[in-house]
C-alpha cells in the first residue's frame, strides 16, 4: 500500500490544476498525463521530460500508485483471474484472451449493495467503492495490460453506484491524452440505476450493457431487488429515447435460469419490450453459486431461446463461458474467503 496519494488515476484537468497550483505551466499537467498513461512509466523519476526539482517534489508528495496483483489463477482455457489489493481489501479482475481480442473484466467496488439473487459478489455485502486509481490499476498493473484490446466493467460491484469514479476512470481510459482505448472497446454493465444512467450517457461515450434477466417486472424484482424502485420500463424508455440521438451500441445481459426466465412466454415478452430499440441480447450461462435456488438453463433451452429471439428480429448470441474452472465466469467473482466479515449489527 502507498502512504502517499497516488498520481495514477488523476484526470488531465486534475493534473493541470496541480501544475497550476505548483506555479507550473498547465502543459506540465499534460506531460505528467503522458508519462502516466501513454509512456506507462514505472516510477516518477522516469518522467524525464519534467524538471528534476519537479520530479523530486512529485515524488515527495505522491506515489505513482501502481499496485501489482498478489494472486493469479489460470484456467485451462487461458482465462486468468487476478486478485488486486484495493481499498484495504481485495478485488478480482478477469483477463479473457480470445482469438481476435483480449478482454479485461474489471471491478468497480469491493462487494456490492444490490443484492441480486444470482450473484456471488452480492453475498459479501458492500465493502467499499474503488477509487479511480484502484479501478484503473487493474488495467495498468495487469501483466497482460499492454496487450488488452477491450475493457468491460462487469466484475465486482455496480459501476453506476460508484458513478463519479467510474466516469473519471472512463475518461482516462478512453482519452487521447490517457490510455487511448477506443470508446467502442469499452463496455459498462449495469442493472440500471436512475438517474445515474442519465449522467453516464451524458458524460461518457462508451458502450452500455443492461443486466435485464427477466422481462416481466414482477418476476425481475425477485431476482434484482433494485427493480422495486428503478422499474425496467423506465430504463427501457430512457434507452429508447437516448438512442434517437446517441449512436452507441447497446446490449442486454441475460443470464438464463431453467424454468425461471427461459420460456417462450419470456421470449415473447422480451421481443415486445425491446421493440423499437436497436439492441443486442447476450444470453449467459449460469454457473450455480452456493445456496442458490436457481439452476442454469440447459444448452437446448439456450439455443431455442437464441433462435426464437433471432427469428423475431432481436439479434441474440450465447456468450461462451470462460474460466469456469477458476470461478472467473459471470456472477462468480468473490473474494469472500479473503475478507473479514462486515461488522454490521442486525
Amino acid at each position, binding site marked *: 500500500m502507498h502512504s502517499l496519494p497516488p498520481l495514477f488515476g488523476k484526470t488531465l484537468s486534475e493534473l493541470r490544476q496541480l501544475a497550476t497550483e505548483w506555479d507550473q505551466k498547465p502543459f506540465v499537467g499534460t506531460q505528467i498525463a503522458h508519462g502516466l498513461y501513454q509512456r506507462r512509466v514505472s516510477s516518477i523519476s522516469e518522467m524525464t521530460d519534467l524538471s528534476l526539482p519537479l520530479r523530486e517534489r512529485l515524488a515527495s508528495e505522491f506515489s505513482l500508485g501502481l499496485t501489482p496483483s498478489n494472486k493469479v489463477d489460470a484456467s485451462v482455457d487461458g482465462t486468468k483471474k487476478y486478485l488486486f489489493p484495493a481499498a484495504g481489501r481485495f478485488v478480482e479482475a478477469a483477463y479473457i484472451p480470445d482469438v481476435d481480442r483480449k478482454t479485461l473484466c474489471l471491478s468497480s467496488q469491493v462487494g456490492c449493495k444490490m*443484492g441480486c439473487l444470482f450473484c456471488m459478489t452480492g453475498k459479501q455485502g458492500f465493502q467499499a467503492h474503488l477509487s479511480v486509481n484502484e479501478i484503473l490499476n487493474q488495467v495498468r498493473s495487469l501483466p497482460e495490460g499492454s496487450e488488452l484490446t477491450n475493457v468491460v466493467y462487469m466484475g465486482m460491484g455496480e459501476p453506476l453506484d460508484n458513478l463519479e469514479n467510474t466516469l473519471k476512470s472512463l475518461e482516462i481510459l478512453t482519452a487521447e491524452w490517457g490510455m487511448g482505448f477506443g470508446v467502442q472497446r469499452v463496455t459498462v454493465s449495469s442493472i440500471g440505476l436512475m438517474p445515474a444512467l442519465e449522467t453516464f450517457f451524458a458524460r461518457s461515450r462508451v458502450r452500455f450493457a443492461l443486466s435485464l434477466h427477466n422481462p416481466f417486472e414482477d418476476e425481475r424484482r*425477485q431476482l434484482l431487488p433494485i427493480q422495486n424502485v428503478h422499474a425496467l420500463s423506465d430504463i427501457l424508455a430512457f434507452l429508447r429515447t437516448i438512442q434517437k440521438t446517441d449512436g452507441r451500441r447497446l446490449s442486454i445481459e441475460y443470464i438464463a435460469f431453467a424454468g425461471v426466465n427461459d420460456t417462450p412466454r419470456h421470449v415473447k415478452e422480451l421481443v415486445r419490450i425491446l421493440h423499437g430499440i436497436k439492441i443486442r441480447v447476450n444470453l449467459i450461462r449460469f454457473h450455480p453459486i452456493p445456496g442458490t435456488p*436457481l439452476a442454469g438453463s440447459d444448452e437446448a433451452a439456450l439455443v431455442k431461446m437464441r433462435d426464437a429471439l433471432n427469428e423475431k428480429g432481436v439479434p441474440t448470441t450465447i456468450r461462451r463461458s470462460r474460466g469456469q474452472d477458476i470461478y472467473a465466469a459471470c456472477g462468480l467473482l468473490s473474494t469472500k474467503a479473503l475478507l473479514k466479515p462486515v461488522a454490521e449489527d442486525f
Partner: protein
Amino acid sequence: MAQPLRPVDVTRLEPSGPDAWTLYWKRDFDFRPGQVVALSIFPQGQQRLYSLASASGGEEASVLFNLAPDGWLTPQLQAVRPGHRIYASNPFGSFIGLPGPAVWVANGTGVAPFLSMALSGLTEEKILIQGARVRNQFYGQEVLAPLLGDQYFRCASADTGDGLQPGRLTAFLESRSWPADRPFYLCGSASMIVEARDILIRRGVPFKNILSEVYF
C-alpha cells in the same frame, strides 16, 4: 429519469433514535404503503430515495433517515426546521404492503416501509422481525409494539432484557420454522438482505415469495 421534484414545506423534524430522524411535511399526494420518494434540498439538486414511513391516509408524509455526517444530503435534512422548503418527488416503487399474511424483516432505517404499512392498518397476520444492536436503535418501536403486539420481535445483537430477542435477526430466522407459502418482505442493508434471504431459502421458502428492498 431523475424524478421530477416539487416544493414541500417541512412541518416537523423529530429524533427517532441515536443519529436517526423523522422528517415530516404536509401530505398532498396519495401513496401506497411501502413506496418511496426522492428528496432533495434544491429544486434541481441531487436526489436520494427514502421510503415513506407514515400512514397512507395521514395528514403528514414522513421519511426516516440516519444522519450520515459525511453525506451530502442527510446533514442538510437534519438542519431543516418547520417551515423550511425542501423538494420531493411523487411516490413510486413496487415494494408495496398488501392485506393478508406476511413476514416483515428489517434492520436500521429499513423499518420505514413497515412503519408505513402498520400505520396504514396492514397489521393483520403480519409478523415484524427487526434487528439492531441495542434497544434504542429499534426505530419506530413505540408505534410498532402496540400495533403488532406479540407479533413484533426485536432482535438485539448487543443488548438484553426488556423483551428483546438476544442475538442477530438472522439467528432468530435460523431458530424458527417459517411457513413457505407466505410472502417475506426484507428491507435494509444489502448484507442483512442477502444473509436473511439465504436463510429463508435454505429453510424452504421459495425465492418467489421473498421481496427485498435494499437501502444504499
